[in-house]
């Protein structure tokens, strides 16, 4: 390795720093070329549309476009906060997502740990396929299945009636709506979510397990002392990302499962935005104001979770 003293003095000056960067980039040009599509995608589809957020402060006129529409200051936000349904939607979104985070977040981790413990590789693959498959079904299909299973004359109620029990009103119960959302989401996404943890597990140095086995550690001890601590950084990152999405709930899922009876439990922010954008008279400025509000809260939650993770000695998202 080249000693620090051997590094030319001018390479430490600001003027040449840039040159060094460019030389480094040129040296690794193939790697950087691979980055280009991702960067272009990010700029085109993530950063450029952010300009549209200015609509939240404008009275949008399609003929004038986003940039030409007149500014109206905070007027759209005044209308947003005047609507009690909006405040309700914010609390409902938070309530559903916090519950989801507490109950649902551990499932992919547990599934990954359990799958990792399987010793027959063929069986492991079959199980992984079985658990991952629901991810590829759309929520329209899943909600169709749910309705067929849980409706008044569905599978479960038919079985209950057969045994002389009273049918349960699953689809029309506000109390059962959130559990139904969580259970169906776990069923659909746990297998897919487990993939990232399985990848993290596969990166653990096998020597650790061998040493533990020599020292007489049981499988359970290996799991808690080796596997879990090793995948903790991944768990932390996934948790921070989940916290950053607390104000967004799966629109497809909730929209397809809700009905007039469960409206009060189900009108989360995404459903509210859909309703005011497409079901009432068009007001893209109004819905942009709601979306912007949601994004700011999401961003704030993400940053708080990141700080909290670092404060507790873990790895954050931003280093």
């Amino acid at each position: 390795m080249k000693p620090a003293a051997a590094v030319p003095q001018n390479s430490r000056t600001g003027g040449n720093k840039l040159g060094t960067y460019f030389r480094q980039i040129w040296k690794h040009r193939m790697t950087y070329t691979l980055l280009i599509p991702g960067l272009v995608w990010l700029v085109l589809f993530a950063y450029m549309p952010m300009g549209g957020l200015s609509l939240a402060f404008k009275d949008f006129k399609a003929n004038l476009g986003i940039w030409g529409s007149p500014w109206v200051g905070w007027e759209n936000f005044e209308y947003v906060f005047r609507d009690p349904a909006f405040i309700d939607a914010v609390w409902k979104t938070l309530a559903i997502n916090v519950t989801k985070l507490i109950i649902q977040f551990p499932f992919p981790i547990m599934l990954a740990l359990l799958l990792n413990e399987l010793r027959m590789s063929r069986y492991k693959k079959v199980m992984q396929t079985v658990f991952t498959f629901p991810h590829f079904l759309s929520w329209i299909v899943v909600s169709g299945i749910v309705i067929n299973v849980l409706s008044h004359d569905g599978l479960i109620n038919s079985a209950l009636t057969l045994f002389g029990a009273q049918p349960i009103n699953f689809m029309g119960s506000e109390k059962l709506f959130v559990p139904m959302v969580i259970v169906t989401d776990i069923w659909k996404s746990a297998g897919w979510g487990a993939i990232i943890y399985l990848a993290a597990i596969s990166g653990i140095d096998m020597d650790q397990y061998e040493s533990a086995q020599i020292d007489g550690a049981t499988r359970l001890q290996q799991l808690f002392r080796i596997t879990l601590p090793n995948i903790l950084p991944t768990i932390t990152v996934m948790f921070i990302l989940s916290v950053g999405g607390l104000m967004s709930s799966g629109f497809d899922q909730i929209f397809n499962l809700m009905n007039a009876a469960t409206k009060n439990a189900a009108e989360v922010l995404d459903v509210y935005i859909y309703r005011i954008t497409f079901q009432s008279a068009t007001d893209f400025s109004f819905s942009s104001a709601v979306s912007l509000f949601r994004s700011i809260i999401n961003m704030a939650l993400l940053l708080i979770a990141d700080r909290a993770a670092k404060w507790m000695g873990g790895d954050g998202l931003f280093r």
Partner: protein
Amino acid sequence: MKATQWLSIRRIMVLSLCIVLMAVTAACSKGEGNSGNGGNAQGSNASSGGNAKDGYDKKLKISLASTIKLEKPDVLDNEFHKYWSDKFNLEWDYNYVEWDSWPEKLRLWINSGDLPDVASWNYVHGDAINYIEQGLLYKLPDDWKERWPNVAAAYKQTGLGEKLEELTGGTYVLPKPVYFENKPADPLLNQIGVIGLRKDWAKAVGFELKDAYTVGELMEYARLLKEKDPGKVGNKLVPISFDINDSLTNIIMANSAHSRVESAFYKGADGKYQWGPANEETLNALKQYQAAYKEGLLSPEFYTWKSQEASQKFSINGVAGITSIGGLASYRQDIDTRMRENLGLDSSEVVHTAIVLGDDGKYRNLEQANFWSSIIFSPNISKEKFERVMDLMDYSISQEGQLLLNMGFEGKDWKYDENKELVSLLPEGTTLEKKYPSRFEGLYLLGDDFSVVNPAIKKEFRERAVKHYQDKAKLSTEGGAMAEYDWDVQLYDSKAKNQAGFDYATEYTNLILQEGDLEANWKAWVNSKMSLVQPVLDELNSLKK
């Protein structure tokens, strides 16, 4: 060696990714060459010879958005559609719009400049004014009424067209007339609010057949069905097969004329505007709605039903005692066809139709503005395409056009008898819709008008439909409570009014399904809405000063 290096897998992958990304970017950009749904590029004007017998030398490709589904992809090749295409020397770029996504799809198309050349649009006044102000709709030439007199005559019947002209200084929207030459009654009330009940079951349980029933009487009939099950359908029986929208029409509106979105804001006896859902009448209606549900007269999960599901229980499954049909003879004919095909029943023998009264015996419904939905044109439509569509619409409203649209070809599908009465030549059990599916060419005048005289619909159904219209007119003027069509409210547009448009069918259903005391829940609901409702009331009241 160098060539191999250059063509390494990594380089090929990078290159492919870049090409794919460029292709995606190009596809997303608004290219001139991308006709998309708009289809209004001049380049799409096919200039083949075509049929020039009507003076149309140039074949035009015209994009159209409509809610009529094309039954099969090749349906446009059938004799009926070809006749229209040949006559007007055009080729359709047809865009089917799903009923459920109709409003949002049109909103997106209009706002993004992707509106097809001509589109059927479910008129929303606030949106219309916005679109017109922004130049998003085509302005018809000032002399259009002289050039297309049939369209102009039908347009005049709508009322809305001329009111809009006063507001906007031109014609941008062509509201579709419901009735033109066959208006069944005066005043005209909305066709909604006609139910069908099983006549054979009513006889079996000793329930009297009448032309009008109160909601309470219908519930009594439903109780009898539940008790005696005359159809022997067991636990599949749905005594009253209403979905949430049917319930709004036939239970809530029957008891409270201002409970619907169309009539929620109305002028009270003191001359001040009020909000109908906060009335005691609405509360009473809700109590009856809740009673019907709690007694098991409605399906336990009626609130999950999609459109048509309620009607299917009656006409396809044969397990329902009462359904909402609506007042058009064509709807009654549809029930007849479905029952014959699915249950092997002659509906004339087993179905009785009636109108629904409030429990105080008063009749309530909405005064019918003589229009429903509208025709709009893309602001980018070429002059010759616009004129071609107008020619087609003008012809479709003529007597010849109406006969063709509703009866098919003379001599083949229908004829005049010795009394100059129309006689259908279609074989028994065949309908025009089956023979020539998806007849969307009747772009302007709605089918309701011809359905009054259409011999393809059984005479008894037509006569019964007219009788219901006449009964509605009589009852609403003799002590009824018709919700008048208030042009001031309907043509008023503001942000507050747009924000106070609620989905009342869902709101009411949610209220009756909630736990606890209905009246307390209703009061809380009314209070929760007042922050949005009061600004509208204030605006409307200040408007009249």
